[in-house]
Structures are given as C-alpha cells and as structure tokens.
C-alpha cells in the first residue's frame, strides 16, 4: 500500500532513482532524499519503533530530529534517527532496544505492568534489602539502554576547524533568511545555518499553498544565493552557545568552531503534542510533522484524519491535508473556531465538521490508530463524556501549541518568560549581541516575521558598528493565542504520555508533584521527564503545564529548564579531540640519537633515559653511573629552566622569591635556590648565580621552568621592582660534564683558570670553551667534580661533539636521566615533585639549612615560621642489605607500622656505587631515626623491613666535589 503522493512543489526527492534498504531483513524502497521514516511510511509501514520503557509501538511524530522512538542501529551506529537520516543503498537497519525485533519484541508485555512501575519506582523498590541490589542492577541494566555498542569499532578521526563571522543566523526559515539577507546587505559577513539539507524552513512545509509566501520564498532564496556576504551551511546544527558567541557548528563532516560577532536566533518552534489516552499510537502525529511528510517527502500521512487544533496553524495544516487527499473526518478545536482567522471558515466550506471546545478523550487501536473519541471540554479541563463522539480514522493530527527552540538563548544567559497572551515562553531579556527573530520571538504572521528579522539584523549591525541598538523586540509579536494552556486529558486507563522518550504518563507527573517536587528542575530529576534522547523537546512544556496547574502556580513560577549543549546529540568522533602532544627537542637530540639513546618524556621534552638497547637497560644505567663516579660522564641538561634576572632590584626580587638569602651571594658564586608557595610547600629548586652587582642567572627544574619565569614576572609587577627577566630556557643549551676527569678535559678546551682557588665549588664563570662563549657553573647534583656548561643553542652540538671526541681518552660516556637520578639519590638530593608532594615543607624534606627565617620577607616565610615547630613528617634515607632478594621495591609503596599507613617511599633504586638498594621515604616523624626499621608493604602485600640510614649515602663530606682530591689522584 503505497502512500506516495504526486510530485510536491518543494519536495526533497530525486524521483529518477530508487534506493533499496532493509529493516530487520525486510526490504524497503524509497527515493534519494527520503529519510528512513518517510520511506517506511510511504511503503505503508506504520510501526517504526518501540518505546524505551514499555516497548509500545510508535510511529511518526515530528520528522524534525525529535522522533526518538524511531531509532535504529546498524553495524556502525547505535542511534540512527529515522526521521532525519537519509536512506542509502544497502542500508541494513534494526530497531533499537527491541529484544526479538521490532515486530516481535518480547518486552511488549511490560506495558501491562505500568500500574506497578510508578514514578520513583526504581528508587523505592530496589533500595532494600541492600544485598539484592546487585541482582536488580543486572536486571535493570539488561532492560534499559538504547542500542548495543560495537566494541570492534573502527577509529574515526574527524577534524575540527575554525571559522568566524559578524552575524551568525541560526535557522533558515523566513525570519532567518530575511535576517541574514538584511545583515549582509548592511555589509556584515554572515553565516546562515540550518539543520535541514535545504534552506526554507517552515516556508516550504507550512506555507506551501500560501500566495503571499510564494513571492517571499523566491525573492529570499534568490537573494541569499546571489549575495557574496552570506555563507549558507545546511545540514548544520548550532550545537550550543559558549562564552562570547563561540558556537560549535556541527556539520556532517565535523564541528566548525565559530566565533560570531553577533548571533540571531531564528530557530523557530517545537510543536508540542496533546496528552490523551493512547496519544502515542502510530498514526498520531504533530500537524507540522504531517506537513513535513507531505511537503518534503510527498508521503500521505494517513487516509482519514481527525485534527485537534488550538491555533491558526492547525487550520492551515488541515487545508494542506485536504490538498494532499486526506479525508478530514472532523476537526476538534480546543477553543473557539469563530475566533480563528478565515481559515476555519474555509475549512468548513470544504464540508469538514468543526467542533468547538472539544478535546480528544482517547485514541483507539492497538498497533495503530483506528479511531478517536472526542468530547466537549467543560470547566477545569474536564471532558463531558456523555456528549462524546467517535470517529473512525487512521490518523490523528495535533496542532495545539508550541515551545520555543530557545536552547541557545538560554545558554547565552537570556531570560525567558511565559507570555499569557500567545501561550508561549518568549525571550524577555537577551544579552548584548544576541537576538531572537521570528516565531521563537513569538512572531507568527509571515509579513511580521520578516519585519522582526529586519529589526534583529538592524540591531546586530548597530552593535557591530559600536552603536546602541534601537529595535523593539516586542513590536511584531503576535497578539493571538497559538498554544492551548491545557491540551491535556486525564483518563482512567492512563497511557496518556507526557514524555514519549521515557514513557512518562500524566499520572507519573501528578504523583511526582504530590511527592513534593514543586519545580520543573526537581521534577525532572525525580521523574526523568525531559531526560531522554530528545531532552524534553516534546515533553517539558506539557510537564511545566501539568506541574503549574497541579500546584496552582504560574508557568513562570514553575520555571523552565535550561537545556545544555548539544542541541542535538553529536557523534563522539566529532566531539573527541585528537591526541596532540608536542615534544620539544634539545639542541643535542641528534647527538643522543646517534649515541643510541632511549628517550623518555620529561614534561614536554624528550630526554635520553639511558643509552643502549632496552634489553641491557639496567646494565647500561649502572655503567653510566660508574663512568661518572670513576671516570667521566656527560649529560644534556638543556631542559633546565634558564632565566636571566637583571636590574637594580634583581637581588631584592630573588631574595623575596627564594628561601635562602640571595642579596649576599658574591659575584662569581652560585647558591641553591629553593622556592615555596604561601603555604610553605616546596614548589621548585635550582641555582641562583651572580654575574654582576645587578646581573643574576637562575636555573630551575625542567618541569617548572615556565612557571618560575611566570612567577618572577608576577612578583616583579606586584612589588613594582626595577627588574628585567629573560627566559632563555629554549635559547640556551646546557650540559653537565661530571666525573673525576672533568677538570682535566675542560682544561684542554678553555683558557679559564680552573684551579680550586680561581674557580671554586659553586662558582660561576663566563669564558670560552672550545671557542664557544659559555657560562660554567660548578655544581654538585650528581656528587662529583663537575661543570655545567651553558652555551647558545646553535653551538651546543659542536661543543658536545668536541667533548665526546676529546673525552675519549678519559672514557667519557653520555649518561641519561635514570643514571642521574641514581647519582643524585646516592647523594640524598631530592627531586622536587618526586620526593616532595603538594604538602611537603623544606623542614620535612630535611633541608632546614635552606630556609633563612631571619630574612624580613620571602614568599612563604611567615607560614614556615609557624610550621617549623610542628613538622610532623620527615624524609629519611633507607637501605637494604646487599644480599636482598625479596620482592621488588618501587616508588609510592606504603610504609606500614602497627597496621597503619605511616608514610611512603618516594625514591628507591639500586645503587651501583654502594652495591645495594637505597631509597628515600617520607614518614611520620616519630618513626624516624638512624638504624630504625622501615617496614615497607610491597605490591603483593608482604612487608619488607628496610633500615633507616643517614644521608647522603655516598661521600657524606662532599670531598669528591673538591679539587684537591682530584689533584691528589692525578698525582
């Protein structure tokens, strides 16, 4: 039984071809341009899907991307909306959430249980006994949900892109098209978006036979096509509103992040269903849905229809149905047809019986509409069933009211309220640069919509030009009622659905109100109204009306919900970002690659972890450590933060930022630089070196380089200091030449006097090394005689190669981050962020010597003064015997004493120099003490007893860093 109509003037179909597809094995056919639902309906298929909770048969409703009961899945997708998804050749669909299939859903009987499954049922029924909940949870999870995720999904990468415009117009109906045109003619760059594949909006389905509309349509469409200032984006949803007119435009190809100067929302209205018994049967649909079906897809909605109307739009739809060959058995007008425009008379003259002040009592049928019973409305929304009439029909069309598609207006911070006269929520106050035009603004007459659109566009242009907008958004608003205040009928058998996403009946909302939920936001969370896939686009308005009437409140008192982005659901691959991690490479990266480095991530840097093959990792690391201790090693430390602090107040700044005194650092010397925040917690450490009276060179940890520079700048501004700060982190490279032979190698490459007196430990010098201008610092991080050499980025490779070549005689060996960690652990030096955490003070870290409380001020001083006597934790060293063979120890293992957590391991590794495991642990102070036990719980639950030892583990006197030892060795 084909319901396909002859060619309609604005239909979307390509009648030259046919497209075949299947639904659960049954073959169907349509034209290119058909959506799944229209093709099925054209073939006489009325059962399109089943409802979420009761598995009731459902058909067409809106054909506007809100028909969430006609939901399909295939191999790739779980949420294919039949009312908007185009058919394509070979498409293989099955209805979602239908155990046993669409036609034989095994869960059909659930509807009979509905008297038991009252609102809040789940919250109350499965609450106790608690031990049974896991069982019920399994039952509920199996029954609920929409669609099965294909876990063998293919990775899909969808790019995002950026665009911008001066005026973004959302909705390409009459108002949107006119607004776009007016704005473009005023010189603005305009983007006009519409979710449909063609522009035109209601002009092309609700005003098809209107003579006035005909000329408007041609004129607007041609002008928009011809205007170079308008970019039209069809198939595109303005998904949401973000700060400063930042709008994701969701296209079929992905999301265009759009910055708009101004935004005109001409998104129109969402037609709302009436609530009566069996209002969800296939064949009951919105009048606008029926109009879309006819005008876009040339499909007859039904043979014999009963219309329920409450506005002129309903009568216009009635005439459209007559033109489409539908026999109208009756029109029930919720109000007074004589108060309507001439359209009602026109319909009467066609011989259609029109009943004033009538409401549908119930629809009849089991798998589709077979009849309707209407009855006169008497006071308080009750129906006089003694005067009811029954009509045989296979369709019921509803045109009883509207809700604004005002989602973006709400998100933008607009204030909306209920207009009693037109019976609709309308904008009351909109933020600057945001305008509403057309029906979403309560403007209905076609000519008025165009005027309203010009008004909005003129206001947008004024704002863009820096003027105050002067338009009156109320000027063209309708003075007639377009929405019934109570399109709702109670019924003893219920099944009068308010929310068809969630199968909520009128009684569910009345019960929720009776339970004390007196605001729509609350009732939403309790009853789940508006929480289904359409997000209440067909449910919220009626729910608000039910709640308002039940509680004797106004609509405004009851409130309206703010729908969050996105307006329509978006595919996850459109939303997902791409993993985009930029690595910074040191100037020596190629040298490391050539030397066989295995790289690791260190912040945004790639650093050599060690050199050699992964199979030999541990051996290589130990060899690197031994090279530094016994011969010569070199490590790339270019990742350290390197900051120049210059100016008369440089010393004051550093003195106030670091815990140690910096004003008295002598020229040519460095000092350990530890910084804490205002809570006294360690945030960074490094070196401050003084090159002149007002010239300092500061290094920071790799991960804190940018933050240290940022913080120094902030304090300079805040304290009004005369200081210049240069971040040279990326501009300078640095390497640490460390080991007993370091001085001998360096001496061959520089004229600098390297003797202990001339260049002592902790000294800083500027000199040429191998002809390259360099800064040299005697540092002690790894605990051997060593020189940190800082050179320009472009010279680093040359110097590295020279050191490696000339160092060959001394057995020079590059070492990586892991060897450096072990070397510093042997010296008991902390790594900020590893041995310290977000609560660690210098006192806990065992570094009271680094805090100069006598200074009048440094950041965190006053806090540390308070915390010093209250220090409750302590970082201690521990060791395991040389012959330890127990379970592996690693960082973050807990220290357990008397069954309580008393601390954690912060560093632990094998010391190649000492030949056994050593580590650091942050523990409760009472447990700390040399030679005391340290019980560590390993990952398998066993307790390993380590012994606390003094730090540094290696060379506690620091003799290795001094020159005379080296000289003695050389002799």
């Amino acid at each position: 039984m084909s319901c396909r109509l002859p060619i309609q003037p604005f239909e979307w179909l390509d009648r030259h071809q046919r497209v075949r597809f299947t639904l659960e094995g049954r073959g169907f056919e349509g034209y290119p341009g058909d959506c799944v639902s229209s093709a099925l309906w054209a073939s006489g298929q009325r059962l399109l899907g089943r409802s979420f909770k009761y598995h009731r048969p459902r058909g067409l409703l809106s054909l506007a991307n809100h028909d969430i009961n006609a939901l399909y899945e295939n191999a790739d997708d779980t949420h294919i909306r039949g009312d908007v998804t185009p058919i394509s050749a070979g498409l293989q669909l099955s209805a979602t959430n239908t155990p046993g299939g669409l036609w034989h859903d095994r869960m059909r009987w659930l509807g009979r249980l509905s008297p038991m499954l009252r609102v809040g049922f789940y919250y109350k029924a499965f609450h106790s006994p608690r031990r049974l909940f896991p069982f019920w949870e399994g039952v509920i999870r199996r029954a609920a949900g929409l669609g099965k995720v294909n876990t063998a999904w293919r990775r899909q990468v969808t790019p995002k892109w950026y665009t911008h415009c001066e005026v973004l117009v959302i909705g390409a109906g009459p108002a949107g098209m006119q607004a776009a045109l007016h704005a473009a003619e005023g010189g603005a760059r305009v983007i006009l978006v519409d979710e449909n594949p063609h522009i035109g909006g209601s002009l092309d389905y609700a005003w098809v036979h209107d003579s006035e509309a005909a000329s408007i349509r041609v004129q607007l469409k041609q002008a928009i096509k011809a205007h170079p200032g308008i970019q039209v984006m069809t198939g595109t949803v303005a998904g949401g509103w973000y700060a400063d007119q930042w709008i994701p435009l969701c296209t079929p190809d992905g999301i265009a992040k759009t910055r708009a100067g101004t935004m005109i929302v001409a998104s129109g209205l969402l037609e709302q269903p009436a609530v009566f018994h069996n209002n969800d049967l296939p064949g009951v649909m919105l009048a606008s849905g029926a109009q879309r079906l006819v005008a876009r897809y040339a499909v007859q909605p039904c043979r014999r229809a009963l219309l329920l109307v409450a506005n002129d739009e309903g009568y216009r739809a009635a005439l459209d149905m007559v033109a489409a060959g539908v026999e109208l058995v009756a029109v029930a007008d919720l109000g007074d047809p004589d108060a309507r425009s001439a359209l009602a008379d026109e319909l009467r003259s066609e011989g259609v019986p029109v009943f004033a002040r009538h409401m549908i009592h119930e629809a009849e049928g089991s798998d589709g509409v077979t009849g309707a019973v209407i009855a006169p409305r008497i006071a308080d929304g009750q129906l006089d069933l003694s005067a009811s009439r029954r009509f045989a029909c296979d369709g019921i069309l509803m045109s009883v009211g509207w809700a604004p598609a005002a989602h973006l207006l709400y998100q933008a911070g607009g204030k909306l309220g209920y207009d009693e006269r037109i019976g609709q929520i309308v904008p009351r106050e909109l933020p600057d640069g945001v305008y509403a035009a057309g029906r979403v603004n309560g403007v209905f007459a076609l000519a008025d919509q165009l005027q309203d659109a010009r008004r909005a566009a003129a206001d947008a242009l004024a704002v863009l030009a820096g003027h105050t907008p002067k338009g009156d958004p109320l000027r063209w608003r309708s003075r007639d009622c377009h929405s019934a205040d109570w399109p709702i009928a109670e019924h003893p058998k219920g099944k009068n659905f308010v929310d068809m996403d969630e199968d909520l009946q009128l009684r569910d909302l009345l019960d929720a109100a009776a339970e004390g939920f007196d605001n729509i936001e609350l009732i939403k969370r309790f009853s789940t109204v508006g929480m289904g896939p359409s997000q209440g686009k067909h449910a919220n308005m009626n729910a608000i009306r039910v709640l308002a009437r039940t509680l004797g409140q106004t609509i405004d008192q009851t409130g309206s919900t703010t729908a969050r982005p996105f307006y329509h659901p978006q595919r996850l691959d459109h939303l997902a970002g791409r993993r985009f991690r930029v690595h910074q490479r040191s100037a020596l990266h190629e040298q490391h690659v050539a030397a066989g480095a295995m790289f690791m991530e260190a912040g945004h840097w790639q650093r050599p972890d060690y050199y050699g093959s992964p199979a030999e990792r541990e051996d290589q690391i130990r060899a690197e450590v031994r090279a530094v201790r016994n011969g010569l090693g070199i490590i790339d430390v270019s990742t350290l933060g390197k900051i120049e602090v210059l100016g008369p107040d440089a010393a004051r700044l550093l003195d106030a930022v670091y815990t140690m005194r910096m004003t008295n650092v002598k020229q040519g010397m460095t000092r350990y630089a530890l910084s804490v925040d205002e809570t006294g917690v360690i945030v960074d450490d490094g070196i401050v070196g003084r090159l002149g009276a007002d010239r300092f060179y500061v290094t920071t940890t790799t991960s804190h380089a940018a933050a240290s520079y940022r913080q120094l700048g902030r304090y300079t501004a805040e304290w009004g200091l005369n200081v210049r700060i240069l971040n040279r982190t990326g501009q300078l490279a640095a390497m640490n030449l460390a080991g007993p032979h370091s001085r001998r190698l360096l001496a061959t490459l520089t004229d600098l006097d390297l003797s202990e007196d001339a260049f002592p430990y902790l000294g800083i010098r500027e000199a040429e090394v191998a002809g390259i201008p360099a800064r040299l610092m005697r540092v002690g991080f790894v605990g051997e005689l060593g020189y940190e050499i800082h050179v320009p980025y472009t010279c680093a490779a040359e110097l590295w190669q020279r050191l490696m070549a000339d160092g060959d005689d001394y057995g020079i060996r590059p070492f990586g981050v892991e060897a450096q960690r072990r070397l510093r652990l042997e010296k008991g030096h902390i790594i900020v962020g590893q041995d310290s955490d977000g609560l660690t003070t210098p006192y806990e870290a065992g570094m009271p010597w680094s805090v100069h409380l006598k200074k009048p001020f440094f950041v965190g001083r006053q806090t540390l003064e308070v915390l010093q006597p209250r220090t409750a934790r302590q970082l201690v060293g521990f060791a395991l015997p040389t012959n330890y063979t127990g379970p592996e120890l690693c960082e973050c293992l807990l220290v357990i004493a008397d069954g309580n957590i008393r601390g954690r391991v912060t560093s632990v590794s094998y010391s190649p120099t000492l030949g056994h495991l050593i580590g650091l642990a942050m523990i409760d102070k009472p447990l700390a003490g040399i030679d005391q036990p340290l019980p560590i719980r390993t990952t398998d639950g066993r307790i390993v007893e380590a012994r606390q030892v003094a730090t540094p583990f290696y060379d506690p006197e620091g003799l290795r860093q001094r020159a005379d030892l080296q000289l003695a060795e050389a002799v």
Partner: protein
Amino acid sequence: MKLIPLPDLGPRPRSEFDYGGELRRPPMGADTALWAAYVFNRQGAPGLLREWWYHRPTGAWYLFERDTLADRFIRHIPVQDIQYELPSADPAV
C-alpha cells in the same frame, strides 16, 4: 571560548592565558590566625573580582576587574594601581 580584552593586543582567547587567581595582598606581620585565613581561605561568592591573568604567548601579566557572576571583564587595572612595597630587605651587596 571566552575572549579576554588585552589593552594593547585586543581580545585574545582564554586558551592563551593562565589564571593567576584573585589579587590579594599578604597581611604582613599579621598574627597566625589572620595569616592562616589569608593563606587558606578564599571568598567564593560571585561578584566583582580583581584577578591576575597571564598571557603565555607574550609572557605578560594583566590585572582585570571581572564580574564573576556575569563572566564579564569590566576593566583593565594598571599594575601601578595595586603595587605594594616589599618589607625592606637587606641592602643589596
């Protein structure tokens, strides 16, 4: 995405900035209770707030007065207006 109006460069997207928190001045020499309140408590109520914003691409700090209820930048505050003197440190050596 929020645009932040820089006095010299014009509006720049929020993603270029680090938030530096509310402008606060440490109560130098306060007793421990007052100092602890300064260190640990924040006034969370929406309203007019003076805040630090760090513009990463240019490495510069800015102070703005922002209406945190309406999320609206009201004005740029020259840093000279809020500067305070450090407690006198030792004279530079």
